């Protein structure tokens, strides 16, 4: 890869570092297994984060800039309830998801529904505005101080390979959500209506699907999924009002990689990014892995814009 060779020359690494960072023939088996575990766990989280975005993107063709802000809102809902009651945050995650569904319906009603037929850029600006409103409100209400859930999570380990419990819970939540959404979309009348709308909006209208209602439901579900992801993030790290940004761009990448509106695709896209990030961080200097991520993204966009698991292009 071009950029790495430039890097090797320009970053003044002493020979010792190059040897450890790049030139070692093979890492010990344990390390490789550990990295695989981390990649899987990180991929699960990324997949989870992308679910809500792919839902709204796939069905409504709206890029929801407020996705990260919705995640953050859910974090603070869980944190507040847990702090106030003294109960474990885990029991409040479903409450946050339901609350976010409601928030999503409201946002759709007041900002997206009126301009569904307008040019795409208008929806982008509106969701950007919503993001500013949400983040600044949270900032004022809760201060910029970092917070963490009042929950003591360690890790389970065997033979030198460790699995942090927080990451494990997040992965379980992610897989459950993917299966649940997949079943909902495949097996229920409403789910089929949503898929029909995603495939062909005008066609769906002809067969009697109430598109407007589907849009409300979609945005609500998308926000609820953002809430689920947001509520899970503090299981693995501290959070503050700004953490949504960290995940947002990756989520865009994952949605396109996996294919718009595809839940298994989101999980697969998340896994790909998780693997690139973990192995990239291990083998490449600095944040070069980010360069890899965007190159892969561009390649997939060009060669298979419908995404790896997407159907035909809309």
């Amino acid at each position, binding site marked *: 890869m071009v950029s790495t060779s430039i890097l090797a020359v320009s970053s003044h690494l002493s020979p010792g570092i190059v040897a450890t960072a790049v030139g070692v023939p093979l890492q010990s088996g344990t390390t490789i297994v550990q990295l695989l575990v981390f990649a899987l766990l990180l991929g699960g989280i990324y997949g989870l984060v992308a679910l809500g975005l792919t839902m709204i993107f796939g069905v409504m063709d709206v890029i929801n800039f407020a996705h990260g802000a919705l995640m953050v809102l859910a974090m603070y809902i869980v944190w507040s309830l847990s702090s106030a009651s003294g109960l474990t945050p885990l029991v409040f995650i479903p409450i946050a998801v339901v609350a976010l569904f409601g928030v999503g319906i409201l946002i759709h009603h007041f900002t997206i529904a009126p301009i569904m037929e307008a040019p795409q850029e208008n929806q982008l600006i*509106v969701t*950007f505005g*919503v993001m500013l409103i949400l*983040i600044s409100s949270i900032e*004022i209400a809760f201060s910029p101080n970092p917070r963490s859930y009042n929950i003591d999570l360690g890790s389970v380990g065997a033979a030198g390979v460790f699995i942090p419990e927080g990451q494990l819970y997040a992965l379980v939540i992610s897989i459950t959500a993917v299966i649940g959404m997949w079943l909902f979309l495949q097996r229920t009348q409403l789910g089929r209506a949503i898929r029909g709308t995603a495939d062909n909006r005008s066609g769906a209208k002809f067969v009697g699907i109430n598109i407007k209602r589907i849009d409300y439901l979609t945005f609500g579900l998308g926000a609820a999924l953002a809430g689920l992801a947001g509520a899970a993030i503090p299981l693995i790290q501290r959070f503050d009002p700004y953490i949504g940004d960290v995940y947002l761009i990756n989520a865009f990448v994952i949605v*396109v990689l996996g294919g718009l509106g595809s839940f298994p695709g989101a999980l697969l896209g998340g896994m790909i990014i998780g693997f690139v990030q973990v192995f990239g961080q291990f083998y490449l200097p600095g944040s070069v892995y980010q360069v890899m991520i*965007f190159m892969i993204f561009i390649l997939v966009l060009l060669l298979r*814009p419908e995404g790896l698991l997407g159907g035909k292009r809309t």
Partner: protein
Amino acid sequence: MSSETGSSLSTVWHRYKQFRNESYATPLLLGIIFGILIVLPALLEVSIAGYSLGTRVSLGMLIVTLVWAYTAQSWNIMSGFTGQFSFGHAAFFGLGAYGTILLVSNYSINPWIGMLVGAVLAALYGLLIGVLCFRYDLRGHYFALATLAFAELLRFIINNIGALGGASGFIKPLPREYADGPGLLAFQFSTDLPYYYVILAFLLIVTTVAFVIRNSRFGLYLFAIREDENAAAAVGIPTFKYKLSAVAISAFFTAWAGAFWAMYFDTIRPDTVFDLLINVEILLPAIVGGLGTVIGPILGSFIVTPLSEIARQSLDLPGTDRIVYGLLLVLIVLYSPKGVVSWPKRLADLLGWQDSPTDEDAVDETHN
């Protein structure tokens, strides 16, 4: 259904409508706008009844307003005229900034030359993006996300290459290190006022370019592509070539703003000039003002930037200004999807001055 009281205003509106249909209308309005902009810094000092504009509006804020008006105008040529929605113009902005400051810092090359080098680089990068995306027929959101990826790519590449300044970027050198001293030639001044006129001159240039394009056959083709690309191709317009030209021109001019930014704010880093937010700030005035119009980006910037500034200055609790700003964005887009340039007509509609439905098309401001 004109009301009695509104009749004289209604007459004014009809006069205005007639005027807007004249071919000289847009250049005349632009002339008035630039006339105001030329004397605006002086107006800041004027005090009326103990109240002067300068207490609310600073020259620095006007400069930033003009920067975003300028970038929006540049962005508009590609995205407004041609309909290829770019969400990655920070790439071109950043290339302009880096081209300028890297050459002057490392090789003492005059920043004006650096600016042109940066602009050519940006145009080439734009062509690369265009060739790849158009060849593979990316449209809509896919195209927007691809442009964003190309911008983020540059950010991370530069961040990881020490020779390009890494994450620390560059600081502009003193004028005496590459020129006789501060002044136009050095692209460095000791006060803000000359910077204001430099960016105003940039805006005049890009606005002229945009106006000329819009009223040329080239512009006609661009708009045909925006309206229906397949139809345009069907009647023999070489859409690929025209889209590429629009991208290159837009990228070339956007880079100038990056160069200006670097010289005005002294320091650049990958996370300032390639920041995600820069992508938004570049396109926002055009959308708020009126996509695809020549006046829109300028009006839009003079709404968006001062609004956020006034909100920030008048609200004491930090953060509330962003809430107000966010609300205003939402409201503007919801209630004015065609932009500020459509306000006179909307006002007329609201007050019932339109004579007949056919009037609607007669003066669609968004086509000026």
